């Protein structure tokens, strides 16, 4: 510990912020890199079908695609609202 250390400002450094942002971004971009190319279209069409029957907005639906050595999983998660049914 030197004399100078006492005068150094201690705040969250911009480098650690950069690292955090990059780790999140890179993980996200890597996972989407291995997705099948039809996925965005499938996602869009599924959403249209669901919206036809249930009152949900974009935020209540999440898609998750996972891949390991033996299998690929497409997970579709819908949070149903209190009054889900549309009057058809």
């Amino acid at each position, binding site marked *: 510990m*030197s*004399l*100078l*250390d006492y005068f150094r400002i201690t705040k969250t*450094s*911009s*480098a*650690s912020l*950069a*690292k955090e*942002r*990059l*780790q999140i*971004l*890179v993980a996200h*971009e*890597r996972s989407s*890199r291995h997705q099948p190319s039809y996925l965005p279209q499938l996602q869009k069409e599924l959403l249209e079908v669901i919206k036809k029957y249930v009152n949900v907005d974009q935020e209540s639906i999440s898609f998750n695609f996972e891949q390991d050595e033996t299998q690929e999983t497409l997970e579709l998660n819908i949070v149903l609202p209190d009054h889900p049914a549309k009057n058809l």
Partner: protein
Amino acid sequence: MARIIVVTSGKGGVGKTTTSAAIAMGLAKRGHKTAVIDFDVGLRNLDLIMGCERRVVYDFINVINGEASLNQALIRDKHCDQLYILPASQTRDKDALTQEGVGKVLEELSKDFQYVVCDSPAGIERGAHLAMYFADDAFVVTNPEVSSVRDSDRMLGLLSSKSRRAERNEEPIKEYLLLSRYAPDRVKLGDMLSVDDVQDILSLHLLGVIPESKSVLTASNSGVPVILDEKSDAGQAYGDIVARYLGEDRPHRFIDEKKGLFAKLFGG
């Protein structure tokens, strides 16, 4: 058979051409017959960094189109007789590069050379794609800065999926990290991503750290690859990188701050 090295980054201005010139010179200086090719069709600059801009007669596209032979187009370096430069075309556009044409030129070079260094243009378009397509090794030049790190990761994705080795299910391209424009004092202050930070994100084998250095501009001003400036920190860093690439075990340098007299007195 030549070993084909691509110097790539995705992002522009991180030091690809400086690195291509330096490592090609480094390999040639150690006695390996080396060719360095500029893939930046339309915006050639390697000739300028190598100091042979006034000796360009034919270029890469002329060779691909059969308008000149490879021997006519290759420029022998004036500092090292083991080094040859194949400049890019300044007048044509990037569509003049074809996969078949590039493949043929590389195949012909492979017969006679030990290393072929491909200086990739920025971006992920045709020139960048073809620069890495035939590669055996990739030098990923990255600055400790968010956009450069992100683009490098994108290039790693392309290297593992869009190269000839990937398409043929061969052993993947060997990828190395070259961290350039590094400023240890800024890292210490927490203003710059550290070597460890970048490695945590990219998980690449570190070939070397090139410090931010005035000597890089001086070298490009005079058209002499910075590796020949053996007194400079950047020159020494590239010297280490070439040695490590060839299998020598050299400890990493230029990662920690240089201590000035003031800091020494105060034990900083």
